C-alpha cells in the first residue's frame, strides 16, 4: 500500500511538477526577473527618468532554473503524497477515481493550497512590501489547513450544519486578516506585481489539475498491475 502510494505520487508529482516548472520558466520567471531589477535598485520606479517596461532580462540560467525544475518536481510530489491518500480514502468509500475526475481533485487542491491563502496573501513578487515572514507562514498554514478541512466537509458530508461550518472555516482566516506590512515601501511597479500574481495562479491551476489527473491515472494503473496476477493463481 505505502509503496503503491509513494510510486504513484513520485510519477504524478514528477510529471506535473516538470510541466508546471516549464510553464513557470516561460510565464512567471520573466516577470520575477523584471521585478528583481527593481528590488535590487537597477531600475527605479518613479525615478528621475522614465523606465522602459521592456528591459533586457537575460536568458536561461542553467543552475538557477535547473534548481527551480528540481524543486518544482519535489513540491508537486509532496502535494501528491497528500492528495493520493485522500483519493484512496474516497475510493474506499465507494467513489470512482479516474483521470477525468482526478482533474477536479487537482483543481480543489489548487483552491485549498494556492487560492485560499492567496485570496488575502497574493503570490508576491520579490521587492514588494510584506509583513514578517514567520507571521505570514503561520497565517498561510492555518488558512490552508482550515480550507482543507472545509473542502473535506463539503465533499464528504451531507448536512447543512457541516456545510455552514465549512463556509465559516473558509471565511474566518480572511475576516481575521492576513499579516500586512506597516507601510507600503515596495519598489516594484504594481503592473508587475499584478501580472506575477495572475501568472502564478494560472500556472498553479494547470499544474494542480494535471497533478490530480496524473495521480488518479497512476493510482489506477498501479492497482491493475497489483491485482491482475491474483485471478491467474486461483
Amino acid at each position: 500500500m505505502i509503496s503503491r502510494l509513494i510510486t504513484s505520487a513520485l510519477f504524478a508529482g514528477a510529471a506535473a511538477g516538470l510541466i508546471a516548472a516549464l510553464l513557470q520558466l516561460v510565464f512567471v520567471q520573466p516577470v520575477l526577473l523584471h521585478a528583481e531589477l527593481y528590488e535590487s535598485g537597477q531600475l527605479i520606479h518613479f525615478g528621475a527618468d522614465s523606465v522602459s517596461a521592456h528591459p533586457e532580462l537575460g536568458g536561461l540560467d542553467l543552475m538557477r532554473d535547473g534548481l527551480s525544475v528540481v524543486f518544482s518536481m519535489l513540491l508537486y510530489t509532496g502535494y501528491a503524497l497528500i492528495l493520493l491518500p485522500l483519493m484512496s480514502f474516497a475510493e474506499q468509500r465507494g467513489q470512482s477515481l479516474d483521470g477525468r475526475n482526478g482533474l477536479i481533485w487537482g483543481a480543489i487542491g489548487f483552491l485549498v493550497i494556492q487560492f485560499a491563502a492567496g485570496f488575502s496573501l497574493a503570490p508576491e513578487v520579490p521587492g514588494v512590501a510584506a509583513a514578517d515572514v514567520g507571521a505570514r507562514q503561520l497565517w498561510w498554514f492555518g488558512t490552508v489547513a482550515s480550507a482543507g478541512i472545509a473542502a473535506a466537509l463539503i465533499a464528504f458530508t451531507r448536512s447543512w450544519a457541516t456545510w455552514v461550518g465549512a463556509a465559516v472555516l473558509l471565511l474566518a482566516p480572511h475576516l481575521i486578516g492576513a499579516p500586512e506590512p506597516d507601510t507600503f515601501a515596495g519598489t516594484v511597479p504594481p503592473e508587475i506585481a499584478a501580472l506575477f500574481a495572475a501568472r502564478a495562479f494560472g500556472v498553479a491551476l494547470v499544474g494542480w489539475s494535471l497533478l490530480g489527473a496524473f495521480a488518479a491515472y497512476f493510482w489506477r494503473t498501479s492497482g491493475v498491475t497489483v491485482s491482475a496476477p491474483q485471478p491467474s493463481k486461483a
Partner: protein
Amino acid sequence: MNQNHTLAEPAITSQTNGVAALLLSVVFGFGVIFAVGLAQADALHDAAHDVRHANGFPCH
C-alpha cells in the same frame, strides 16, 4: 459463522495497514512541502527561491 470470523480478520488487518500507509504518506508529503516551501534555512531558501515565489509561499 466461524469461517466468516476467520475470513474477516485478515481484511481488518489490511485495513489498519491501509490507514497507517495513508497517514505515513501524508506525513511524508508535509515533510517535502515544508522543506521546499517553508523551511528558512539559507541554502534551501536560495535554491527554492523562485519556486516559492511562483507557488505563493510566503518567502522573505
